[in-house]
């Protein structure tokens, strides 16, 4: 399975394609289960790059764990969470704040 990821042009924040737009967390990213779906995501990514919404667009491997999308490679896991040595920063900080609330 694959998901489409990029960084937002204006602030560089990592984003994933989900539900017709770019989400700041990976959990609900659109999954491509086959080549046709991958092609569709790639086309959406190319269009978003051309439209100056995002940069550095890539299809990456992902799994579904407990109903949420998770990247496979460590690099992408860190992109999706934030620096492992500063868990107060990045996406994980928001998630922790939600859990704590």
């Amino acid at each position, binding site marked *: 399975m694959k998901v489409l990821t990029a*960084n937002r*042009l*204006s*602030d*560089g*924040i*990592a984003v994933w394609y989900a539900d017709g737009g770019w989400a700041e967390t990976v959990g609900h990213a659109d999954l491509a289960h086959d080549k046709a779906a991958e092609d569709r995501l790639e086309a959406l990514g190319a269009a978003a*790059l051309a*439209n*100056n919404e995002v*940069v*550095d667009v890539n299809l990456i491997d992902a799994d579904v764990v407990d109903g949420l999308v998770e990247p*496979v*490679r*460590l*690099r992408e896991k*860190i*992109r999706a969470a*934030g*620096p*492992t*040595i*500063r868990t107060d*920063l*990045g996406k994980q900080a928001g998630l922790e704040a939600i859990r704590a609330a």
Partner: protein
Amino acid sequence: MYRYDEFDHDFVQARVAEFTDQVQRRLSGEITEDQFRPLRLMNGVYLQLHAYMLRIAVPYGTLNGKQLRMLGHIARKYDKGYGHFTTRQNIQFNWPALSDIPAILADLASVEMHAIQTSGNCIRNVTADHFAGAAADEVADPRPYAEILRQWSSVHPEFSFLPRKFKIAVTGAERDRAAIQTHDIGLHVKKNAAGELGFAVYVGGGQGRTPMVAKKIRDFLPEADLLSYCTAILRVYNLYGRRDNKYKARIKILVHETGVEEITRQIEAEWQELKDAELKLPEADIQAINAYFAPPAVPDRPEGDQAVKLARLDSKGFSEWLDQNVVTHRHPDYAAVTISLKGIGEVPGDASDSQMEAVADIAEKYAFDELRVSHEQNLILPHVARADLKAVYDALVDIGLATANSNLISDIIACPGLDYCALATARSIPIAQEISQRFASLERQREIGELKLKISGCINACGHHHVGHIGILGVEKKGSELYQVTLGGSADENTSVGEIIGRGFSSEEITDAIEQIVDTYLGLRLNPNERFIDAYRRVGPAPFKEALYAGETKAA
């Protein structure tokens, strides 16, 4: 320190205006990412894993309080409250929005700073001995030469599109604290028999995937010929350096493939054409730049000896810090202080906004408003009266920056690694933190003695692992992080590239492996004065291999 003249101010302001316009055109979609990428890189803006990264130049590592305070302000206002000091004596911010970068650059320009040439295939920030101007052992302050090189190389039209990036370092002492032999050009300021100043010139050093120790191509270059000779080197490189393969594009490969004798001949031939023309440095110009770096007028403070003696009795922490982080100054009443950015378990090279501001205050109050960033990712107060050392120490304790570990095993160089960097293949920082925690006991660290441990999270070697007494290189293997260990590297006047000791270690194993290496050293050193690097050079890798892998061989 150097102050901008009218030309410098206008130039930096013009660049801020130009890049502001480029950012706006990018954000509005007028220019594409392919068009913008080289423009942003020329202004120090990278795209990393989580966000953009802005690398700001600290020329030859020299800062004043106002500048460091501005860096703290930027950290707080535009970033996430901290910055990362780098091995090029620069600082990086990890989270700036592209849309904020014009404002950041304008703020920097207001304190005579910028981010020009901190990326791209050009001549990068020229680095120098972090004790320059203060060291008791220097022949001359290397920074005026670094400044002359900075002026010459800034937007140099001929050298803005080199085959690859180009790094120059200058030291003014026999004891090399600037790692000049790991640079594209390394300059050692020295005097000839007649007492005239000049340079020993080294070319073709570098790290990355093909580490090379620079070759000395000239034992003495007269001071006035600095720019003509560097131009000759750059011309030969620009003409013959490889552009077909970025991994073979650095001058080290050209020097290696051409041979030292032949490349020296080419450089000397080119220099003959240049040496008596307009690049010859007029004495008056050298003096004018020297004047900017005139040492502060330090008054005699003979009460320092007594003050230090009493403070030592009063505070064990101060006494340890004094032994470890304070070095001799050319004036006997003064000292140079290393502010360790390597607190136990902290991120090497990181400083918070409030720490930066507090250090700026300390520099203004006690250190003639002078600061340095070291390539080992620490801050330096180059001129502190010994009588004020205790006050400086107390102020550093208050902000958590009084760790007494300069040159010890926990004074680790580490690149940002996979926690931030888009090129990294493994994490560096958590490994540095774990090792630092394992060796947290200062008593144990001091028993081990000087030990340079350096960690890179990929083969590009930003963490200088090749020249660590112990080097650690993180790679990705079958989806996991794997750490390769090299031993016997060194980045001083006896530069050497470390040797890979054997198979790599997992992230769970690596700290144990380092401990085993250290214990092996402690067991075989001739006496406590034999440093790790000296012991390694004496005995070679065998005892360390035996300690690390003997069990495996027997099992197999």
